[in-house]
């Protein structure tokens, strides 16, 4: 709660960032993203990590629209990312469509397929819907691995590097700008959506679907729309992976990925855009940190070396469990607490 700000029009009262403090924070974050590659001296590894976070943020926002905001659990995230990645990859590799054009196309194709696999949500809720989306996951991956003529089957699909004139765009530094521009657009569009009847209808369905229907929300249509909008952004993530990596394989889109993204939004904060970013950062940086820790421990106790990978996985799980026990509402909640503390500063108590 910010005190001392009074709005003189509904327009300013309804702005995305209502106070100067909120605008300042957003400005600082944008400045950080713009400066980051230079702050790290253009070193590839930190930029690579930031790119991973950016890509995951887009996918996490997409999943959060469906799960966090609309309350429709989905285990199909990995498969929807596959649809985006294969659509973009195939269009460029086989049909020579410019890489930048494949991103919106892949997003739209994923949105359509997401909506189709959202149909069971008419009848199914909670765990039953989760199982139905699990079926979607398995069906899509099955199609991808068996439709050899188009996808290349289990073999990797090689995607030609994205070019801008004579510039090869998929270096860590150059792709950084594409990823974070799209992450910014995704966050902005999503924030806008939740200022209008669409977003409110999604939340209404999550909180009280019968009341939503009686208030005039066509619950089925809006559930499908939530699947479509969510999958749209997930498709963007898939397309970005295809062009950044230059290679598409089904193994990157298994059920593990679906679970990873669910963990991301739960840890970051359900129904929150900044929470999606926090979750994406956490789930990208923690394994990287553990890997580096493991590497530096190598040789310290030579007898332990072969256990290091297991220790990494175990600590990854442990941190997540601890996290859920200590702060079930996610990183977003911690962030809110910090903000509230400073908003009242120096009169905080």
């Amino acid at each position, binding site marked *: 709660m910010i005190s001392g700000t009074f709005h003189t029009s*509904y*327009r300013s*009262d*309804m702005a995305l960032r209502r106070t100067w403090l909120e605008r300042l924070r957003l400005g600082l974050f944008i400045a950080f993203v713009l400066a980051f590659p230079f702050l790290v001296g253009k070193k590839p590894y930190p930029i690579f990590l930031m790119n991973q976070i950016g890509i995951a943020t887009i996918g996490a926002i997409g999943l959060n629209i469906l799960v966090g905001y609309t309350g429709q659990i989905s285990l199909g995230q990995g498969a929807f990312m596959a649809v985006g990645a294969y659509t973009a990859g195939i269009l460029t590799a086989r049909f020579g469509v410019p890489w930048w054009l494949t991103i919106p196309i892949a997003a739209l194709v994923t949105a359509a397929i997401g909506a189709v696999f959202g149909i069971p949500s008419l009848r199914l809720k909670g765990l039953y819907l989760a199982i139905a989306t699990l079926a979607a996951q398995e069906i899509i991956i099955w199609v991808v691995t068996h439709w050899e003529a188009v996808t290349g089957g289990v073999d990797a699909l090689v995607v030609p590097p994205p070019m801008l004139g004579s510039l090869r765009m998929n270096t860590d530094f150059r792709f950084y700008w594409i990823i974070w521009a799209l992450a910014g657009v995704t966050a902005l*569009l999503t924030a*806008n*959506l939740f*200022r*209008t*009847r*669409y977003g*409110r*209808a999604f*939340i*209404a369905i*999550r*909180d*009280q679907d*019968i*009341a*939503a*229907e*009686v*208030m*005039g*929300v*066509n*619950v089925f249509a809006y559930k499908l*729309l939530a699947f479509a909008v969510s999958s749209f952004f997930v498709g963007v993530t898939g397309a970005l992976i295809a062009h950044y990596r230059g290679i598409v394989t089904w193994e990157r889109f298994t059920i593990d990925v679906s679970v990873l993204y669910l963990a991301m939004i739960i840890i970051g904060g359900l*129904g929150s855009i900044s929470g999606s970013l926090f979750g994406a950062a956490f789930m990208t940086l923690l394994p990287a940190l553990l890997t580096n820790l493991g590497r530096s421990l190598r040789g310290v106790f030579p007898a332990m070396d072969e256990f290091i990978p297991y220790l990494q996985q175990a600590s990854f799980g442990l941190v997540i469990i601890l996290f859920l026990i200590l702060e079930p509402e996610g990183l977003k909640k911690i962030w809110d607490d910090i903000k509230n503390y400073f908003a009242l500063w120096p009169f905080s108590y």
Partner: protein
Amino acid sequence: MPLQLRGFRHPLNGSTLEPGQTQLRVENIHLAFGGVGALAGVSLEVRQSEILAIIGPNGAGKTSLLNSISGLYHPQKGRIVFYNHGREYELTRMKPHQIAAAGVARSFQNIELFRHMTVLDNLMSGAHVHMRAGLFSSLFYWGPAQREQIAFRDFIEDIIDLLEIPAIRYKKVGALAYGLQKRVELGRALAMRPALLLLDEPMAGMNTEEKEDMARFILDVNEEHGVTIVLIEHDMGVVMDISDRVVVLNFGRKIAEGTPEEVSKNPAVIEAYLGH
């Protein structure tokens, strides 16, 4: 043009009828769940701009009747007809969201608000059926989408003033006291700019002061804005004070109908209440 006056005189009223005209006709509806009969041949009429109270002992079928009108329950026999926009809507063949768009709003016996939204967003979501901006202008929040949100915000602020809840605008509904939640639920229904407002025990569980406030709001909405109201209420004092007509249900049947005085003297009604 979201705020253009539609229908009868006032911005909160979505009806196109004149006072006294038949607005809703329930014709001989039967509703059973498995073997349990909830409604056994109920017929009644609601007229534009009246306050009709539905009373009856627990389990009489009052809520089932409202649920049938708003399309949540599907009577096995009979029909429910609603007049608005120069049309005859057969509610028994429509989906709840279509019935809402036709002009029927309601509140629930056990508050069914959107708990994690603010009061303001709950009310704004009540105006859902009147919002027109498309998905793309909404995603970019430009032109029409923004203008529409601001125009409706203005309209919602009137409801906030009417219900005397400006102080809790930005509060999450789940954190509010019970009596305030009931008020917000009334507000959300009003945001639909209804032609017919169905209220299921709007004063249940309230103290005397809260009941008086709620009664005043209901009368305001009815007298100043001309909105037709059907309300279920157990408190006979309230029923006597605010309703124009009363319908009494018992075991799924209508056992009496008339002015509050007539009904309170009716032997069958006295019997039904004493019998329980």
